[in-house]
């Protein structure tokens, strides 16, 4: 075993969003930092998550644009196209490569020492890389992230049963795909492959897809996906995955089987706890427990990001990494706050939310709802992208914004404004003092806030 001379203020395990941000942040504050990564920098997000899916979805948008071209007077000689799947994958990989090498450059420019290999913490709280190199540090940030979770169901090992990792590497477009699990990942994949031309069936156990978003948003998304011929089965349980002459037969409890070329299992993700090594952490159903400072039950070891499974999102991992770094370097002082962290589903149209759903808000507050439909938004009309709405949930006493739910164009961008409103405790009456540029999609947020107050100009007045 090699023993390194160097000793660090902070050692980070894992180079995903939580880890690389923690490392850079700690370095920015003057700490001497090492980071250990066993695969590629950027973690799930850059390599197998956020970025690859968005590259595919954009391709889908191009195809949709093309399909509405004729009605706008752009007459293509032919509207036929084929998907060159190896090229799709290669394009995606080249985007990923640029971003991951970008992360490495960021780390180097901040003088973070880079170790490649599997890190495990030993009994002395040293970090051991590939069972050989020992690194010593004052504090450890364990940001191992997550991996796909599997279900224990007969036939799960069929080679045509895929994880999202596998699906994103596939260089033959499947004709048919069954998506088991209609959460965010399942639905984004469904949307992406639908746009490329695959025939999709989504199978969800709960009574609606993406149960985490507002009921109305989920319902509209369901309707829109069905219109694109995505088959959606809710309240449906699968019992077995059987081989059927090279296809997969997905057996359904009390119903007819679904046959598909490939099956995507997208039922959730589990913390990757390989880095724990010899340390016993307080756990909670496979997750490393952390306090509001992102510190684990073991003093001096922090665990930001998917590894604590509080909210498995890249931007949450970013923030957790920042908080962990600040506390590791300067002592526990910065608390994690997540009440204004948005969630986005990158479908077309996009679905986005922040704060409470209407159901949740009504339990705790006396609420007023403001609503604006994109059907009446000038930019949405001009762009032919006018399905959806913005719903603002405010408390009726102070006009505080409790939640915002959007289905529609630019939802992912508009929701950041809503997050800012919530973070800065800006009331609906203050929002409408701001001048929103015209024509913009985000005017819909302005109008929805005005509607909370009964002052929206662009909403037809209900007659009594």
């Amino acid at each position, binding site marked *: 075993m090699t023993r390194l001379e160097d000793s660090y203020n902070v050692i980070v395990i894992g180079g995903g969003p939580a880890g690389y941000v923690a490392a850079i942040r700690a370095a920015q504050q003057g700490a001497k930092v090492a980071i250990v990564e066993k695969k590629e920098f950027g973690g799930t997000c850059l390599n197998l998550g956020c970025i690859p899916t968005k590259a595919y979805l954009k391709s889908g948008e191009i195809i949709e644009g093309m399909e509405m071209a004729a009605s706008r007077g752009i007459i293509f000689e032919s509207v036929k196209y084929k998907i060159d799947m190896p090229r799709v994958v290669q394009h995606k990989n080249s985007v990923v490569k640029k971003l991951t090498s970008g992360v490495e450059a960021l780390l180097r420019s901040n003088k973070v020492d880079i170790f490649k290999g599997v890190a495990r913490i030993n009994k002395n709280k040293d970090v051991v890389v590939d069972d050989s190199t020992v690194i010593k540090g004052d504090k450890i940030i364990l940001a191992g992230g997550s991996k796909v979770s599997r279900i224990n169901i007969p036939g799960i090992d069929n080679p045509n049963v895929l994880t999202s990792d596998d699906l994103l590497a596939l260089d033959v477009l499947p004709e048919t795909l069954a998506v088991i699990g209609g959460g965010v990942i399942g639905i984004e994949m469904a949307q992406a492959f639908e746009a490329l031309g695959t025939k999709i069936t989504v199978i969800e156990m709960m009574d609606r897809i993406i149960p985490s978003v507002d009921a109305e948003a989920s319902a509209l998304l369901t309707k829109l996906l069905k219109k694109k011929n995505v088959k959606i089965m809710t309240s449906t349980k699968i019992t077995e995955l059987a081989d059927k002459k090279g296809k997969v037969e997905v057996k359904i409890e009390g119903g007819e089987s679904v046959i598909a070329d490939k099956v995507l299992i997208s039922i959730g993700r589990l913390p990757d706890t390989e880095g724990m090594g010899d340390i016993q952490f307080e756990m909670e159903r496979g997750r490393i427990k952390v306090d509001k400072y992102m510190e684990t039950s073991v003093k001096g070891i922090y665990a930001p990001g998917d590894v604590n499974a509080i909210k498995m999102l890249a931007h949450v991992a970013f923030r957790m990494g920042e908080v962990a770094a600040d506390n590791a370097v300067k002592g526990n002082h910065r608390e994690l706050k997540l009440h204004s962290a948005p969630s986005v589903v990158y479908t077309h149209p996009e679905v986005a939310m922040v704060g409470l759903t209407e159901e949740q808000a009504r339990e705790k507050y006396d609420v007023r709802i403001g609503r604006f439909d994109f059907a009446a938004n000038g930019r949405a009309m001009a762009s032919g992208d006018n399905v959806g709405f913005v719903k603002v949930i405010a408390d009726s006493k102070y*006009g505080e914004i409790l939640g915002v739910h959007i289905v529609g164009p630019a939802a992912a961008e508009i929701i950041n404004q809503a997050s800012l409103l919530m973070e800065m405790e*800006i009331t609906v009456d203050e929002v409408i003092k701001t001048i929103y540029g015209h024509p913009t999609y985000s005017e819909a947020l302005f109008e929805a806030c005005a509607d909370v107050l009964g002052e929206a100009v662009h909403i037809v007045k209900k007659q009594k």
Partner: protein
Amino acid sequence: QPPVTEKPRRKALSTPVARAMARDLGIDINEVCGTGPSGRVTKADVENHKSVRKPSSLRVS
């Protein structure tokens, strides 16, 4: 020569929700100690102020 790392300082600010709440409760927002970003007085600060205030008004000084 080390870089000047003096961080920008800020105005005394309050959030709109904090202002609405203070108005509603008859609290002078300027008396509330701000703990929010930039020292901004937040809703939580007004709520805390409210609970701190009560006993102090009973205190004979």
